């Protein structure tokens, strides 16, 4: 009998019972909650006269609707304000661990979970948010759920799930200078396609993944969902354990030792069999830029925009011509010829301290180009912001003409006031380039923090390696 994958191991540890057709009742260790996908779940619970099963498993935070400018005036938009106040009330009445808008620990749910040690290796972690895949960087089985499932976890601590298939994405070799975790995951999505991981849990492995920091691994797992997989995983190693140690909610003392011993088992067995294996050569990955309206529409910065004729099937040709029309770019134009209007450095993909350091390191005394109307830097949490300020990164950004903001999801999805106007083009470190994602009619190009920073300074895309 062959060995087990990391996914097999975590799955088996969490099955409470199974139906005849294999549908399992899966136990959930950590439930992260934010203001957008929870109000209807809390309401459903109350209407059915049910109590939450285990409130100590829940950590709540406001992130999607919060303003990134001065917060002393509150939230101007009454609809957003009501949603935030609804979580304030629910957190209070159900007595949840909650980071409200004024808490220094507030931030994007997928940044603060790991930061607080709420995310631990071997856990099952869910949240009403597709980027929950982020937490898989810790060797935790983490995936996004809808609001009905949020209510289901609240009421029962479990979810009804069918087991996914196992995919291994191995990135062998060493990444070139100036090539980051974001480029790796965009290259992976470019290779497997935006639905390539549908039905799978993806384990990311290989020497290039192992050499990434936890921040880098979170960036990779974060975008597993953009490749179609609800969950991404990276095996536990010393990097994982060093990151978790001494976090506020991490185990301490004897429990820490016992936990570490258990966590060291969280790797796929050498003889584990994957249903699908995809291999990339790290040395071949160059800085990536998306050109279209799906994350799979991506290419190297030194390439040209593709033409519909470059694709072999009619559905893809049609998608390409729709995308070019929406994006307002010409087939065959060099990616570096594309001028931008705005820059967004932030989101659950790229707003951690390492991302901000990477973006700041590109500046070297230069200023944001004249054609760039707005260059936003939005730290992922209050604590990331504080650390960046201690390192003087805020000054580097501000002196160069970037705006230094308060933490939140911000212009990744534009639920707050930060958004693109129709036709505006943005170099963005976020995760989705869908039509209208950053504002109706807005045009998004996904890049790494270094590439976004370089684009801000140049006014168009440039290869950060020669900038």
């Amino acid at each position, binding site marked *: 009998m062959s060995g087990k994958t990391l996914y097999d191991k975590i799955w088996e540890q969490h099955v409470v019972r199974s139906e005849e057709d294999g549908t399992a009742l899966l136990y959930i260790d950590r439930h992260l909650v934010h203001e957008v996908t929870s109000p209807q779940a809390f309401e459903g619970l109350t209407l059915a006269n049910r109590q939450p099963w285990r409130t100590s498993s829940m950590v709540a935070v406001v992130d999607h609707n919060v303003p990134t400018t001065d917060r002393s005036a509150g939230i101007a938009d009454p609809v957003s304000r009501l949603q935030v106040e609804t979580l304030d009330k629910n957190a209070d009445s159900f007595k949840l661990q909650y980071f409200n808008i004024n808490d220094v620990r507030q931030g994007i749910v997928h940044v603060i979970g790991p930061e607080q040690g709420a995310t631990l290796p071997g856990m099952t972690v869910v949240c009403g948010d597709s980027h929950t895949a982020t937490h898989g960087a810790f060797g935790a089985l983490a995936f996004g759920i809808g609001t009905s499932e949020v209510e289901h976890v609240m009421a029962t601590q*479990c979810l009804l799930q069918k087991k996914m298939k196992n995919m291994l994405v191995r990135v062998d070799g060493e990444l070139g200078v100036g090539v980051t975790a974001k480029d790796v995951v965009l290259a992976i999505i470019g290779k497997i396609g935006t639905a390539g991981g549908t039905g799978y849990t993806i384990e990311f492995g290989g020497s290039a993944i192992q050499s990434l920091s936890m921040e880098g691994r979170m960036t990779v797992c974060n975008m597993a969902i953009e490749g179609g997989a609800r969950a991404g995983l990276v095996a536990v190693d010393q990097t994982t354990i060093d990151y978790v140690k001494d976090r506020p909610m991490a185990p301490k003392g004897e429990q820490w030792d016992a936990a570490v011993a258990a966590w060291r088992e969280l790797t796929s067995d050498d003889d584990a069999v994957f249903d699908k294996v995809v291999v990339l050569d790290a040395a071949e990955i160059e800085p990536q830029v998306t050109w279209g309206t799906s994350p799979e529409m991506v290419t190297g910065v030194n390439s040209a925009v593709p033409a519909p004729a470059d694709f072999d099937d009619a559905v893809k040709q049609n998608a390409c011509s729709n995308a070019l029309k929406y994006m307002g770019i010409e087939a065959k134009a060099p990616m570096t010829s594309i001028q931008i209007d705005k820059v967004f450095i932030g989101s659950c993909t790229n707003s951690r301290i390492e991302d901000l350091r990477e973006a700041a390191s590109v500046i070297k005394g230069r200023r944001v180009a004249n054609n760039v109307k707005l260059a936003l830097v939005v730290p992922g949490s209050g604590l990331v912001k504080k650390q960046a300020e201690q390192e003087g990164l805020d000054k580097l950004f501000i002196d160069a003409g970037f705006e230094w903001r308060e933490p939140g999801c911000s212009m990744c999805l534009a639920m707050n006031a930060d958004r693109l106007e129709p036709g505006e083009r943005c170099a963005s470190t976020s995760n989705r380039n869908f039509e209208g994602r950053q504002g109706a009619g807005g045009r998004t190009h996904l890049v790494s923090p270094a590439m976004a920073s370089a684009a801000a300074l140049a006014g168009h895309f440039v290869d950060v390696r020669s900038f």
Partner: protein
Amino acid sequence: MKAFTQVSGIVAPLDRSNVDTDAIIPKQYLKSIKRSGFGVTLFDDWRYLDPGEPGQDHAKRRVNPEFVLNQPNYQSANILLARENFGCGSSREHAVWALDDFGFRAVIAPSFADIFFNNSFKSGLLPIALSAEVVDTLFKRCAEDAQYSLTIDLAAQTVSDTQGWTQQFDIDPFRKHCLLNGLDDIGLTLQHSDAIKAYEAQRAKTAPWLFA
């Protein structure tokens, strides 16, 4: 949950792949704390020519006459036809609520994104995966007949038209059982409370830090 047994109706063809949940229901409408009222802003950016905001009177907005759902014969469509990877992107169940609120009871596509697929069943919206070839045939029939209709029989797991064309589809037996009977998932799970408690007691011994 609403039960699903048999549904017949007009098929609205949305000829796009990778229809994402931002397209199905844009972010500004997710600020609502309710489950209802999303139908009028389903596919908002494609359906209207001017930008929309929550709370406005959408009847006064400029409608995009090109968009399929704005064509008179599709106003009462209850089956949506689309290309591969329907519902990709965000986990927002609002996408399902919007389709349901518009009047759709089923979506037929070659494939669905996993989270959307799961969410659909929670509101009694049936996602049916048929091969790309079959879906292509259905698009052709819609192009030939603006009133093209299908009947979906969940118990028999068939999709059929009035000219004798029939196709089988797959569905997990457990999901089928819940959907046919309109069962409440949470109520079902709570019948296993003892098993959950026993699991917790055992797990607390082997991994006590998870219950600290």
